[in-house]
C-alpha cells in the first residue's frame, strides 16, 4: 500500500493538527475485577495485571513520553485501613524495576465499628522512559503497582464493597481497579 509522507497536516483554516508535542496517540487499559485481601504491612505487589509486570505499552518512537494513570478501589473492614501505593516501570521483561515516584499515591478508609466501606483513589503522572534507560523504538515499557499498609491499620481489601455491614468478600457494585497507559507524541 502506498504511503504519503508529509511534514504537516492542516485543516482548511490553516490550523495544524495531527501529531504534535504532547498529543495522545495510543491508550492501553488494564482491569482487575477480583477481590484481593492481604493482611501484611510490608511492601508487596498488587495482584493480577496490576502487579505482575505484564501491563505494558509499545511506543512508536523512543522520543515519546508515557502518561500513567491508575485507579484503585480500596475496601475496608472495621475500623480503618491506610495504604500507600508505589509505581514501578521497566523496559522489556527482564532487568530491574525503576521507581516512578511521581505516580505514587495513597488511600484511607475509616468507619468505626462498621464493615464493607470503600474508597476510590487515583493518580496520574507523565514521564520519559528513555531518560536514564536504554529504551529504543518498539520496546515494550511495563508497569506494576505495589502496596504497603499502615502499621496499625494493615490490610488491603481491593475491590471489596458491600452496602451491608459485612466482611463478606463481595464486589457488589462491579468495581474494577485499573491501570491506563497512554503514549504522548514528542517531536524531539
Amino acid at each position, binding site marked *: *500500500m502506498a504511503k*504519503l*509522507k*508529509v*511534514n*504537516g*497536516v*492542516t*485543516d*482548511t483554516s490553516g*490550523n*495544524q*493538527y*495531527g501529531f*504534535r*508535542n*504532547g*498529543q*495522545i496517540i495510543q491508550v492501553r487499559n488494564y482491569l482487575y475485577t477480583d477481590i484481593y485481601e492481604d493482611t501484611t*504491612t510490608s511492601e508487596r505487589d498488587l495482584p493480577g495485571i496490576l502487579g505482575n509486570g505484564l501491563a505494558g505499552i509499545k511506543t512508536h518512537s523512543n522520543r515519546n513520553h508515557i*502518561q500513567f494513570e491508575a485507579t484503585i478501589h480500596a475496601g475496608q473492614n472495621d475500623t*480503618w485501613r*491506610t495504604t*500507600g*501505593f*508505589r509505581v514501578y516501570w521497566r523496559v522489556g521483561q527482564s532487568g530491574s524495576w525503576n*521507581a516512578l*515516584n*511521581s505516580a*505514587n*499515591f*495513597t*488511600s*484511607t478508609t*475509616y468507619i468505626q465499628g462498621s464493615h464493607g466501606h470503600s*474508597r476510590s*483513589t*487515583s*493518580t*496520574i*503522572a*507523565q514521564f520519559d522512559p528513555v531518560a536514564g534507560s536504554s529504551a529504543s523504538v518498539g520496546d515494550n515499557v511495563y508497569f506494576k503497582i505495589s502496596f*504497603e*499498609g*499502615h*502499621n*496499625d*491499620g494493615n490490610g488491603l481489601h481491593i475491590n471489596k464493597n458491600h452496602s451491608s455491614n459485612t466482611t463478606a468478600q463481595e464486589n457488589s457494585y462491579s468495581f474494577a481497579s485499573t491501570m491506563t497507559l497512554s503514549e*504522548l507524541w514528542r517531536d524531539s
Partner: protein
Amino acid sequence: MSTVIANAVLRPADDKVILRKSGCIVQSAQYEYSSVYEDLNNNNLIDMPGDLGNGNATITPYFGDSKILFTGLIHCGHQTTWRTNFFRTFYRINSGSWTQFYGGFGSNLYSGTNSMSQTIKCSYLVSPSYSAGNSIGFKIQHIGHANGGHLHLNQINLSNSTANNNVINAHSKIYLQEVAQ
C-alpha cells in the same frame, strides 16, 4: 515542505476517520511538588507551595479555541484527630489577574492514629477566554476547617508518627491537558 490540507484523514478500507482535531488531547504538562509541607493555621487561606501555587503551572495552547482539562492531585496527610482541607483553583491569562473557577475540591481524614493519608484527584474542563499564543497559568489555594484544618501536604509515614516524612515519595501536582475543539 509538503503540507496536506484536509478536514479529516480517513483510512482506505472503510473511510473511518483516523486523524482529526476536535476532542483530541493535543498536549499535556505536569507541575509537581514532592516535599512535605505543613500549614498549621486552620482558617488561613494561602497559596499552595512551589509550583502548585506560585503561578509556574502554565500551558500555551496550540489553538485559540481549545479547552483545558485541569487535574489537581493532592496527597493530604493527617495527624490525630482529624483534618479537613479545602482547595480552591484559579487560572490567569499570561500575567493577568487570577480568576477562580468551579474546580475546587476537599479532603477529610479522621482517626486517633497519626499519619492517615489520602490522595485526592479531581479533573475539570475549563473554558478560559484567551488568544492564540497566550499562556494560561493555574494555581491552587488551601484553607482548612476552623477546628481541624491543618495541612500536612505529602506527609506519608505508614506508621503512627507525626514525622515530616514522605516514605513513598509521592508528588502532589497540577496536570494540564489541552483539548482541541
